[in-house]
């Protein structure tokens, strides 16, 4: 039970994923929401690498993990640009205040 196997990594990943979701849902600040998203992406990555290691897939999982990292970088850049723009437009970064979708 205590000897580390595939399940341990999966559990870490699941916890990290849940924490990310929690961050996304509860925090008001858009930047904090972004941090939650990063956590979620990291947990997915752990899964990829773990399966790559324990499953018989060669390095394919790692390659995809690498792609996810690149995607995350691109996503962060764009998301922060959007946040800056939102801030300029509404003078506000709290996502719960920005509910123009409602109208």
């Amino acid at each position, binding site marked *: 039970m205590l000897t580390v196997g595939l399940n341990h990594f999966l559990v870490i990943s699941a916890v990290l994923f849940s924490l990310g*979701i929690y961050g*996304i*849902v*509860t925090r008001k600040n858009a930047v904090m*929401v972004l941090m939650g998203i990063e956590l979620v992406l990291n947990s997915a990555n752990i899964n990829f690498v773990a399966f790559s290691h324990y499953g018989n897939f060669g390095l394919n999982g790692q390659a995809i993990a690498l792609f996810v990292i690149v995607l995350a970088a691109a996503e962060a850049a764009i998301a922060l640009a959007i946040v800056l723009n939102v801030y300029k437009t509404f003078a506000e970064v709290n*996502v*719960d205040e920005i*509910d*123009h*979708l*409602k*109208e």
Partner: protein
Amino acid sequence: MSESLLINISIVILFLPLLGFTTVIFFGKKIPKLYMFEVAVLGLTLLLSIIVAYVKLSIYDTKDIIAAFTWISMGNAPALGGINIELGFKIDNITVIMLFVVNLISFLVHVFSIEYMRGDKRYTRYFAYLGIFTFSMLGIVLTHNLLMMYIFWELVGLSSYLLIGFWYEKKSASDAAKKAFIVNRIGDIGMFLGILILFTQYHTFTFDAIYEQIAAGNIPFGSNAWLTAAGILIFMGAVGKSAQFPLHVWLPDAMEGPTPVSALIHAATMVAAGVYLAVRIFVMLTADAMLVIAVVGAVTALVAATIALTQNDIKKVLAYSTVSQLGYMVMSIGVGAYAFAFFHLVTHAFFKACLFLGSGSVIHSMHHEQDIRNMGGLKKKMPITYYTFLISSLAISGVPLFSGFLSKDGILAGTLVFGKLTGHWLIPIIGFAVAGLTAFYMFRLVIMTFHGEPRDHHKYDHAHESPFVMAAPLVVLAVLSVFIWYTPNPINPSAGWVIGDWIKTPAQVTPLETRYEFMKPSSEAAKAEVHGEVIHSVEYTETMHWAHYPAMFLSLFLAGLGILVAFLFYQWKKLNADKLAEKLQGLYKFSLNKWFLDELYDLTAIAGTLRFSSILAWFDNTIVDGIVNGSATVTRFTSRMSNWFDTYIVDGAVNFSAFLSGFVGLSFRRLQTGKVQTYIVFVVFAIIILLMFFKPF
């Protein structure tokens, strides 16, 4: 130079004019002087075709170079076997000679047009059209299969339509363009059917593959009659394009196009295509088909020559002379004088182009006067035009030392042999008669235009020699009408390189029983030895030797007689043409009105079509419209019914559902907070519910 390089150069030759066309047509308006690009392109293709011709004729003299690739592969349906449709080039001696002829004349026409068409409002477009015309013709020349030939055949039809109707504001020009297009289509239907007969039997379009199968004894539907039919039907395409009787009517009308275009159409591109096709299918023609072809050619030659006697429009005379000469070539194929048919095609191309460009030069300087009764005395004003015109006229009349004599004499000797060996004496008689008529009407034209006193002084005073770019092509073409380019012996073409070395009559592939006696090889052994090159029977060779001098002297005599009569009538005024015309009024009218053929077509084919159309119109008006109107009434009734249904039932349902969804929407609106985070919470709960539901663990 390797064979593949030769093929590559040929591909470049084919597509350069197309490049010129697209460039000029798309950018001609933006870039001034772009037409020079088209001219330069043609110059380049001319240069390349000279190289190709030189290499082919000197290195690969006896070898056909073929390059093909599979265009469409139609699998292997058991009933059909594998059908592979190939596109490709076949480069043999006649191909390269034609390449040179087409490109040279096209280039000279381009150069000539620079001055002739100056000031036209669609100047650049004109050059673009010349480009696509050349491209189409080169495609016909280079192809190794019937399909590609048919495609380019139709492209030639299209580009001739564009060029004949170039001045489409003139009704006569647009009518002439339509006429050329439609009349050609009639011939093309025959060609299409012929191609289909061959394709149905052999599943290939490639010439050589078809001929191989015929030579192996594989006849369409097992009957020689079908082979004859295929030959005649494909030849119908040539009847249309080469303006053979009875489809020759489009060609004189095509004079409505600009004069350099006439030169291009009548010397090198369009009408030559028909003869070229006949040359290509020569080996699969049966004796019956050849007889039909010979008769068609002879009739054409005679009809056109008699019409040309009385025409007064300088271009009309030349047009009918073209028809007549084409009749000669076709007749020549019909009598088996293959080499001389092609030789005449080449020599005729040069001197006829010269004549047309010369007439263009005259028309240009006379401010678009085309009636020779208003000309005269231009010899002094336009010496270059006069002398080149004279040389070409001597050539076409069959005077020794000029190219026309060589080829025409060969054809006449061929007909004479044919008459002697088969008993069809009418064909050589017509051939010789036409030779005399040709000499007469050509010199009538020369004398009326250039000799004597000017009849319209006002126009005469303004006449002037054409500038250099118009005169130079004339000189080039006139020089090429001299015998020395073809043979060192001015009375015996067989001593020269064109007939002696380059053009070899190919072996017939048709079954022996369908050939003329004289087309059969002397023995089975000989047949096996000389595969690829026909050796006529010993009898034929002997008769040919016998016919050489009689034919030559007879044709010389007739040409001299024709020229003499022309001088008597028009130069020395010893005889009065008008009085003779009055005496033979019936014949004169018959000739002047072109045998009333146009009227005959109007009365029969066109009136018949109109009649048929009016019957169809009646049918449309009463029966078809009746059905349509009836169905309209029914439709209106049913529409009323459905209208009521729509208004009360469907609309009611729609309104009710709209009300319902509005109500539901209002109630659920509260869930829509507009906050993404709330939605995510919903999503999380939804996933949880789904997990509970499916229990994946």
